């Protein structure tokens, strides 16, 4: 398996390449426009891999995604969970769907909360073992922190859940769906450090493990959803600049020129 994490420092964002060198194919997860489509195309080409799928954990609000363009340039699907309320077409998947490159399985784990369509991706390298090795947790679970529930655009049809519901769902999702994974599973999130998508306890470290977050993630030590929601609110950072505009672009509601440089 080839597994690469790309860090975009200006927005503390992490994207991923997951591939199989024998099959010569790879998936890209959460590509960011700040790095650009060419960046991913060349990284994959340098590794002798064809990009056969572009996946997103959710529709992003703090950065401009280049998933649509990247998928089009590679003639491959742009995947999002079937709940994603975009205006443009994408290839939908459901909880439990498995996508494969060579010996690598990527299982879709529907983990709503931060957003209503949020999905984590469980990675299993069958050339080594049948057990999962890592999980890409998007903005659900961070190293040391959790995704914030208050990035709403103000349209019920698009937001689906309000802040309170998102927080409660997030708490249940992490406990019931992520913390029930084997302890050794590595956690690779979509943000780190100073990113505004999580609270003040977010670590700058690349990755963690289910075991470590279960034990030491402060928000998740709270006894119930209400206490969790309060803690998240108390430890929140300022809202990302222009998040409504960025989210609108990523949803397909506005064109790129309306962004005027936001989210890159």
């Amino acid at each position, binding site marked *: 398996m080839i597994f690469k994490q790309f860090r975009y420092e200006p927005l503390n964002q992490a994207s991923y390449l997951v591939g199989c*060198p024998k099959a010569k194919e790879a998936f890209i997860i959460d590509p960011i426009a700040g790095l650009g489509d060419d960046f991913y195309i060349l990284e994959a080409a*340098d*590794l*002798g891999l064809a990009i056969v799928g572009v996946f997103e954990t959710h529709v992003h609000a703090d950065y401009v995604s280049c998933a649509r363009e990247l998928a089009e340039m590679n003639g491959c699907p742009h995947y999002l969970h079937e709940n994603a309320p975009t205006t443009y077409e994408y290839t939908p998947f459901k909880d439990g769907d498995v996508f494969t490159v060579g010996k690598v399985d990527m299982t879709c784990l529907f983990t709503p909360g931060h957003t209503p369509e949020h999905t984590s991706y469980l990675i299993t390298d069958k050339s080594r073992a049948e057990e999962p090795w890592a999980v890409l947790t998007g903005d659900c679970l961070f190293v040391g922190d959790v995704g914030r529930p208050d990035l709403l655009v103000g349209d019920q049809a698009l937001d689906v859940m309000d802040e309170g519901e998102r927080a409660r769902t997030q708490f249940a999702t992490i406990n019931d769906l992520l913390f029930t994974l084997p302890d050794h599973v590595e956690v690779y999130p979509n943000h780190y450090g100073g990113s505004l998508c999580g609270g003040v306890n977010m670590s700058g470290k690349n990755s963690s493990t289910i075991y470590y977050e279960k034990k030491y993630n402060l928000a998740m030590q709270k006894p119930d959803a209400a206490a969790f929601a309060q803690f998240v609110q108390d430890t929140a950072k300022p809202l990302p600049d222009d998040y409504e505009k960025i989210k609108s672009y990523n949803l397909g509601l506005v064109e790129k020129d309306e962004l005027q440089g936001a989210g890159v």
Partner: protein
Amino acid sequence: MAEYQENQLLDARGLLCPMPIVKAGKVMRGMEDGEILKIIATDRGSIVDFPAWCEDTGNELLEWHEGDDGLVFFIKKVEEED
């Protein structure tokens, strides 16, 4: 599997056949007799390329294996007696 302590490391990952050998040749020229060069390569052809290169140059292929990062070769420099 024995692990050798290398004197130099050549990261040949991403290089395409036969460039790992071409680069190894350059690095070896700057090494002393008896020193060990560790090479990590991702090109599959390296599996037959390096043994052949060792026979041609007289260098000794100590060991190779498939690691997480790529194919790992430990080669000891053997100065040719003229």
